């Protein structure tokens, strides 16, 4: 910036406290107002309002021509979204659970994600694929996975994973406006659903009006000097809880919320680890071949010397998510495992 530039001061925005789901719906509604080419389709997104409240109230506002219930035919309706996007519409298509990826994976990774590349950049696929992820409520092995590492592994789709209401809104706005396919993964545990255990952080300040949270920029959710926790989604909240507990003992934890896996903000990871020298990765997806390994490789590829101690990984230990609560809690990255990992890192 030169001295003659006038700095842009953002207008102060009114803030209300909203749940994550209400913030997400607000973004969708605002974009639908702005752009008639935005439609939302999927299973039970109409009068039900989305099984995890992803579309509450939208049918009343926009009608069945834009909030569209589909048959249980993920291959057909996700493919329909692709065709509509290719023709210049901006469809948002909901895959009810990320776990159902298998019934329609071809449309997602061979078509939605590859058309732009295969066409040499000539055909754009500006669609958003939304999907609910995560466990912690005994829904068993086929309804509790995160699988974001799988989506992120396959090239051609951006993958965003908000943890806060404000980010849920800003990232959704950015996703709808993006010319690329964006997979928007919302954790059931951060939505603020009335029928699940309350996470107090699932309701928070949300700016009024429309704004974008840029896709690909991580957020320092808590500053600290002793150890970096790199994480995303519900685990951000667990990690913040643990960080507060440990601060009473003088352990100063920095929590980095990745916000998106593709693109991955490698700069933010390196900056934080360069400061603390200690890294804990918390990931609710499976451990092997996934996000935690990628985060660690980001550091070691750049400079293994940044790490003063070995990395700690807290992820699902490569088992299907069990049903019974003690079993499920044993494999998910919950407070106890996160705390133990941080203690190991700072003690080393």
């Amino acid at each position, binding site marked *: 910036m030169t001295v003659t530039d006038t700095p842009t001061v953002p207008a102060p925005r009114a803030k209300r406290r909203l749940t994550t789901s209400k913030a997400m719906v607000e973004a969708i509604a605002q974009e639908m107002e702005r752009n008639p080419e935005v439609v939302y389709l999927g299973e039970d997104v109409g009068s039900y309002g989305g099984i995890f409240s992803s579309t509450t109230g939208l049918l009343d506002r926009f009608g069945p021509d834009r909030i569209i219930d*589909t*048959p249980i*035919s993920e*291959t*057909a*309706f*996700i*493919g*329909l*979204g*692709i*065709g*509509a*996007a*290719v*023709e*210049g*519409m901006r*469809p948002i298509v909901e895959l009810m659970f990320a776990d159902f990826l298998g019934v329609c994976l*071809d*449309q997602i990774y*061979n*078509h939605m994600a*590859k*058309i*732009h*590349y*295969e*066409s*040499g*950049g*000539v*055909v*754009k696929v500006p669609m958003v694929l939304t999907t609910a992820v995560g466990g912690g409520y005994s829904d068993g092995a086929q309804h509790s996975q995160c699988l974001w590492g799988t989506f992120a592994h396959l*090239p*051609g789709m*951006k993958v965003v994973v908000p943890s806060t209401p404000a980010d849920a809104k800003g990232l959704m706005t950015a996703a709808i406006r993006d*010319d*690329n396919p964006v997979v928007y993964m919302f954790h059931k545990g951060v939505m603020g659903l009335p029928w699940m255990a309350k996470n107090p952080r699932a309701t928070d300040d949300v700016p009024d009006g429309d704004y974008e949270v840029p896709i690909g920029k991580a957020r320092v959710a808590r500053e600290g000097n002793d150890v970096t926790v790199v994480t995303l989604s519900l685990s951000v909240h667990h990690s913040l809880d643990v960080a507060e507990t440990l601060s009473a003992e003088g352990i100063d934890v920095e929590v980095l919320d990745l916000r998106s896996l*593709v*693109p*991955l903000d*490698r700069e933010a990871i390196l900056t934080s680890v360069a400061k603390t020298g200690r890294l804990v990765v918390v990931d609710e997806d499976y451990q092997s071949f996934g996000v935690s390994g990628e985060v660690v490789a980001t550091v070691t*590829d750049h400079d293994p010397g940044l790490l003063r101690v070995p990395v700690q990984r807290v992820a699902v230990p490569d088992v299907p998510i069990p049903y019974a609560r003690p079993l499920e809690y044993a494999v998910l990255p919950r407070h106890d495992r996160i705390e133990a990992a941080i203690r190991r890192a700072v003690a080393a």
Partner: protein
Amino acid sequence: MDAQTRVSLYETMVLSRTYEEAILREYHADKGPGFDIGKGLVPGEMHLSAGQEPVAAGLCAHLTRDDAITATHRPHHLAIAHGVDLRRMTAEIFGRETGLGRGRGGHMHLFDPSTHFSCSGIIAEGYPPALGQAFAFRRRGTDRVAAAVTGEGAANQGAFHESLNLAALWSLPVVFVVEDNDWGISVPRTASTAVGSNALRAAAYGIPGERVEDNDVEGVYAAVGRAVARARAGEGPSLIEVHTLRLWGHFEGDAQGYRQDLADAPTHDPIPRYERRLRDAGLLDDAAVERVKASASERVEDAIRFAKESPLPDPAAATAYVFTDAPSAGGTR
């Protein structure tokens, strides 16, 4: 059916066959010694559509460039009949920077937004995107249609049935076309499908189903005419199966040891047969046939020349076009 349309169907078929013969020649020119699929000016798998020209000619005669087609891994006849630029399509097949996909797609992945043409290497998975194109066309108040084409093997895939159901449910302007060439690679239709005609399956979705026998281009033209009129009028999708002929192998290099019908195949070639018909009707003579073939040959050789003279893509740009924004470099996404 008027004389001009009949001759034009013939011309389209000849152009397509001329093209396939040229690709065949270029493909095999430098695969040796022996046969190395990854070698040569045209590397990789090659699925040629010789024998299936009546489907493309009969279908595309009813479509404009504003209508969409999603084709299969055997796409050339449909692309040519729909008016995809021959030079840029050929350049793509040759893996050149001037190709439709700048060499990123290849012959199974041709995308031409100017004619709404695309194809997919995955069986039946071109059907769902056609629904979306039809959805967008109707939503904009146009009478444009989308044609979704598969082979008969794909009619056993889930995507086929999900798409028929959804298109019927929402009355989408889609014309579903099945090219029944009797062979899903090496498996005959009789060993993969319980019903004799996939057109019967339309009944399960409450839409018209029609089978055209004998690889008859005028039969295809008539059936597609009914289906397109229905779609344009907002009456929803139709399913047409054409009993066609895969004259050559599933892919080039396929010795076809499994095929029982090969001895007869050349006598069923639809192009000389249709040519005789038009000669008998007094619509073609030696001079006219010669003109059609010479014109096709000129266009095809021009396209091949264009492809060969075009530059190969810069290896440093292999990671470009993953996303529309930030040009990506390996490992930093």
